[in-house]
C-alpha cells in the first residue's frame, strides 16, 4: 500500500485466540462464556495461596492442531514461563505463558488479494492463560468510583499467534485475519466468536519511505476484536504516522489503544513506560516434551482445510467463486458436504445452498448450524425435482414450508397434494379445454408465432395450480397443435 504517495506500510499481527477446550488451561473449571460473576472459579484460577497449576493436555492437543493447520513446526521441547506484571484482573499478578520456547515455531499461510497470492509468515504461536475481566461502574477504570473483577475468564486457554511483518496493505491484513480465523474455525480449536472476545488482535504497524529496506518505527495497538475495528484502526493509525513523518517528526515507539467511539488510537504507554515482564521459567510446571508420535496422532485428526475443500468442489464443477462462498465458513461447507453425500449434483446443490437456503436463513437470522432444514432434507427435496415429482418452482415453496415446519419434503408434497401431474390422461383433458378456450393463441401459434405457445402453457399451469409437469405439457401441447 502506498501511503500519501511516498510511504510503504509494514504490518505484523499478534492474534490471541481462545481455545475451545471444555476446561481451563490449569484447572478443571469450565471455560463456558458468561455465567454469574466469579462462579467459574477455583483456588487455582483465583490464585489462592498454595494453589498449583496442572496443564490441561487438551490445550496442548489444540495448540498442536492449530500449529499443524498453520504449517508451523511443533517444538519437541517447550516450556512455560511467568510473565510478571500487576493488574487486578490477573489473579496471581503473573501470567503463565511461553516465552523463549513456544510450542509452535515457524509457519505461515497463503492469502489472496485481488487475484494475487501471497505467503504471510507466522513467527510462532504459544499457549497462555487468559486474564479475568474488570467491570467498572463508569466507562473506564480511571473514571469509575468502583470496579469489580470477574475471574470467570481467568485461566481460559489462549493461543497467541504472531505473524511476521509481511503485510503491506490493509486488504492484506484483513485477508490474513479472515484466513486465519477460517482455519481456526475449520480445525475447531476455537469457536472464533469475535463478539464474545474469543479472538483479539494486536496490530504492529510502521511506515517507511518507498524503496527503503529497513523498517520504520512501529506502534502496537492492542486488543481489537473485530475486522471492522482492525480496518478503521489501521486507516487511522497509518494516516497518523504519515502525518507525523510528513511533518518531519519521528514516530514514537509505543503501545496504543483503539478508541472505537472516537475512531482514534491513543497512547497507552511509551517505550520508557513499557513493562519489564521479568520472564522466568515457571517452576510449578515441568517442561513440555512432545514426541513425534503425539504430533502424528493430532495430524490424523486434522479436517480437510478450506483450500483443499475449495479445490474438491471446483473439481466437481463449481466455479472458483461458488466454491469460495461455500467454503468460507466451515458450518456452511459442512452442510453442503452433508447434502452432497446424498445428492450428487454439486452445481444444482450449490445454487440452492447459496440461493434459497442462505436467503431463508438470513431472513430468519438463523445460523447454518441451527437450520431447521437438515442437509439430508435438502437433498431429498432436490431429488424430488430430479425425479419429476415436483417442479423447481414448487420446490421453492416446499422449502419454505420445510423451514417453518421442519417436515420432510416428501411429507409436505403429499399433504398438500403438490406432486406434479405427469399423467398424460389427466393432462390431455386440461390441454383440450385450454385449446378450445383460446382459439386466437392457437391460431397465432399455427401462424408461426412461437411465443404463443408460452401463453398456452401458462394457462395450463394455471389450471393445474403449477403442478403440471412442464416438459410433458410442452410435448403434449405441441403434438395437439401440429
Amino acid at each position, binding site marked *: 500500500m502506498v501511503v500519501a504517495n511516498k510511504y510503504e506500510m509494514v504490518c505484523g499481527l499478534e492474534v490471541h485466540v481462545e481455545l475451545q477446550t471444555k476446561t481451563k488451561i490449569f484447572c478443571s473449571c469450565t471455560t463456558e462464556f458468561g455465567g454469574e460473576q466469579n462462579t467459574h472459579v477455583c483456588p487455582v484460577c483465583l490464585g*489462592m495461596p*498454595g494453589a*498449583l497449576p496442572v496443564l490441561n493436555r487438551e490445550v496442548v492437543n489444540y495448540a498442536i492442531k492449530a500449529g499443524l493447520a498453520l504449517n508451523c513446526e511443533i517444538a519437541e521441547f517447550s516450556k512455560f514461563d*511467568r510473565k*510478571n506484571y500487576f493488574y487486578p484482573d490477573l489473579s496471581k499478578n503473573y501470567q503463565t505463558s511461553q516465552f523463549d520456547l513456544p510450542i509452535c515455531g515457524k509457519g505461515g499461510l497463503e492469502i489472496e488479494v485481488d487475484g494475487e497470492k501471497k505467503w504471510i509468515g507466522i513467527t510462532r504461536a504459544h499457549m497462555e492463560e487468559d486474564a479475568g475481566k474488570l467491570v467498572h461502574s463508569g466507562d473506564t477504570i480511571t473514571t469509575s468510583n468502583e470496579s469489580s473483577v470477574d475471574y470467570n475468564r481467568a485461566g481460559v486457554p489462549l493461543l497467541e499467534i504472531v505473524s511476521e511483518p509481511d503485510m503491506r496493505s490493509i486488504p492484506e491484513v484483513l485477508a490474513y485475519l479472515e484466513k486465519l480465523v477460517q482455519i481456526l474455525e475449520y480445525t475447531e480449536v476455537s469457536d472464533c466468536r469475535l463478539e464474545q472476545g474469543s479472538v483479539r488482535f494486536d496490530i504492529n504497524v510502521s511506515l517507511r519511505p518507498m524503496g527503503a529496506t529497513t523498517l520504520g518505527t512501529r506502534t502496537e495497538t492492542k486488543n481489537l476484536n473485530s475486522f471492522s475495528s482492525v480496518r478503521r484502526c489501521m486507516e487511522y493509525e497509518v494516516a497518523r504516522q504519515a502525518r507525523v513523518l510528513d511533518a518531519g517528526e519521528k514516530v514514537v515507539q509505543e503501545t496504543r489503544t483503539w478508541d472505537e467511539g472516537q475512531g482514534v488510537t491513543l497512547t497507552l504507554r511509551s517505550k520508557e513506560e513499557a513493562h519489564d515482564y521479568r520472564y522466568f521459567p515457571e517452576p510449578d510446571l515441568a517442561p513440555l516434551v512432545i514426541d513425534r508420535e503425539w504430533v502424528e496422532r493430532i495430524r490424523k485428526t486434522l479436517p480437510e482445510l478450506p483450500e483443499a475443500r475449495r479445490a474438491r468442489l471446483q473439481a466437481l464443477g463449481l466455479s472458483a467463486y461458488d466454491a469460495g462462498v461455500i467454503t468460507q465458513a466451515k458450518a456452511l461447507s459442512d452442510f453442503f458436504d452433508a447434502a452432497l453425500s446424498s445428492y450428487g449434483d454439486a452445481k444444482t446443490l450449490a445454487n440452492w445452498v447459496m440461493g434459497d437456503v442462505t436467503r431463508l436463513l438470513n431472513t430468519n437470522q438463523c445460523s447454518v448450524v441451527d437450520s431447521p432444514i437438515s442437509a439430508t432434507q435438502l437433498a431429498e427435496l432436490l431429488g424430488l425435482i430430479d425425479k419429476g415429482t415436483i417442479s423447481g418452482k414448487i420446490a421453492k415453496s416446499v422449502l419454505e414450508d420445510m423451514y417453518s415446519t421442519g417436515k420432510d419434503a416428501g411429507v409436505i408434497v403429499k399433504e398438500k397434494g403438490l406432486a406434479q401431474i405427469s399423467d398424460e390422461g389427466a393432462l390431455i383433458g386440461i390441454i383440450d379445454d385450454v385449446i378450445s378456450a383460446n382459439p386466437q393463441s392457437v391460431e397465432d401459434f399455427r401462424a408461426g408465432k412461437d411465443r404463443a405457445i408460452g401463453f398456452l402453457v401458462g394457462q395450463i399451469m394455471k389450471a393445474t395450480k403449477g403442478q403440471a409437469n412442464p416438459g410433458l405439457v410442452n410435448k403434449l401441447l405441441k403434438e395437439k397443435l401440429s
Partner: protein
Amino acid sequence: MESVSIGKSVSELHELLVHKDISSAELTKAYIDRIQAVDPDLQAYLTVLEDEAMAQAAEVDQKIAQGEALKPLEGIPMALKDNMCTEGIRTSCASKMLENFVPPYNATVTNRLRAAGTILLGKLNMDEFAMGSSTENSYFTKTRNPWNLECVPGGSSGGSAVAVAGDEAAFTLGSDTGGSIRQPAAFCGVVGMKPTYGAVSRLGLIAFASSLDQIGPFTKTVRDNALVMNAIAGYDALDSTSVPYETPDYTKFLVNDIKGLKIGIPREYFGEGIDPDVAKGIKAGIQTLIDLGAEVAECSLPHTEYAIPAYYLIATAEASSNLARYDGVRYGYRADSNDVLGMFKKTRAEGFGQEVKRRIMLGTYALSSGYYDAYYLKAQKVRTLIKQDFDKAFEKFDVLLSPTAPTPAFKFGEKSADPLAMYLSDITTVPINLAGIPAISIPAGFVNGLPIGMQLMGKAFGEGALYRVAYTFEQNTNYHSLKPNLSGEVLTCGSR
C-alpha cells in the same frame, strides 16, 4: 494417665492406643493441657484447635470401641506449620498479609494426615512466608527454644521444631526451602527430614520458592519420622512437580546396621564459619559411625561456596513472583486507597514484614531486564554444578555427612540486625535444596547445653539410606532421649 503419655514417641503412643491404655481423647486432652501450660513460654502455636481436635479424637475412639484396627498414626495428635492450607482453619504464613486468611481447601498433606487418622492440634509459628532462619520474622510472636528460652529455635519452621521438642505435639510438619526443617530440628534436638524434591506434594503449601520448597516431618525418633513419611509421601497428580515414584515403606530401612556403608564427609562443610565445638561434636558422631562399621572418607563438593549466592538469587526470584498475588484484591490484608495502584502499594507496604520485602526486592532485581543473565541465569548454572558435585560424590558414597548448622542456636537479635550473616548460616543446608536431594538432621550432641544436629544427605529418593544411618546412630546414642527442662511441665507431665 495423660501425664505419662506426653513425651512418648508416635510408635509408643500407637501401642498405648491399640492396647486401650489410653484413649485418643485423653491423649489429645493431655496435649492441649500441655500446650496451655508451656506455650505461653514457648510460643510455638499460632492457632490451637481444641474443640476440633477433641471431636476428631472422639471419632477415633469410636473406631477403637468398634474394634477397628488402628492405622499407625490414627489418633495421634500433631500440628502443622502455618503455611499448609487447612480448610476452614486460618492459615496465616505468620504474616499480617494473611492474618485472617481462611483457605477454602486443604493441602494434600493435610488431607493425607487426615486420612491417616491423625488429630490436628493447631497451626505453628514460623518466619513470615518461611523467610528466615530464626522464626524472629513472624508477624505474631517469637517462638523460644525449649533448651534455652533466650535462644531462637531456628527457622523458618521454628514452631514445628519447638512443638515436638517441647512435647506440644507428637509430631509436626514443617517446610524446607533452604534448611527450614533441618536447622530448627538441629537447634531443638529433634529429628527433621527434608525429603527429595517431588517426594511430598506441595499442593496447598503456600509457596516461598517453588523449585526449592519441600514439606517434611519433625519427630522425636527416626522411626516416627519414617512413619510420618509413609503417610505424606507419594505422587500427587495435582502437583506437576510431584514425581510418579512408588513410595517404599520407609520403616523397612530401620535396621541397626551400617556395616560397610560408605559415608562421605564433604570437607567444604567443615570450613570457615563452622563453630569448632560443633565440628568436634559431629566428628565424635562420625567416630561412632566408624565404630559401628561404616566406611568413612573425606570428599569434596567443590562448588559449595557458590551455593549461598545462587540460592539467594533463585529463591528470591521465585518468591518475588510467588508473592505478587498478595495485592489486597481477592483475599488477605487490604489497605485503603483511592486508586488501584495505590491500594496495591499500600497493601504490600503494610502487609509484608521487612525480611519479606527485602527478598521481594532482591528477587525482582535479579529478574530485571538486563540483569537476568548475570544473576538468575548464572545462578541456575551454578545450581547445575552443585547438583553435579553431589552426583559425583554419590558415585562413591551412599550417604554424605555434615553438621546441620554451623553453630548451635543463637540468641534473639544476635543475627537479625545483619541479614547477610543470617544468610551465611545456611551454608550447610541450601546446597541440598538446590540439588533437590533428601537430607535429615538428627540429634548428635550438645554444645553449651544446646543441641547440635548431624545432617545426612542422600541420593534423590534415597531417604531409605538416610533412615538406616540415622536409626543406627540413634540406637547407639542417647541424645534423642534427653529432654529440655521446662518450667510448667510439672503441672501436666509427671513423667520426667
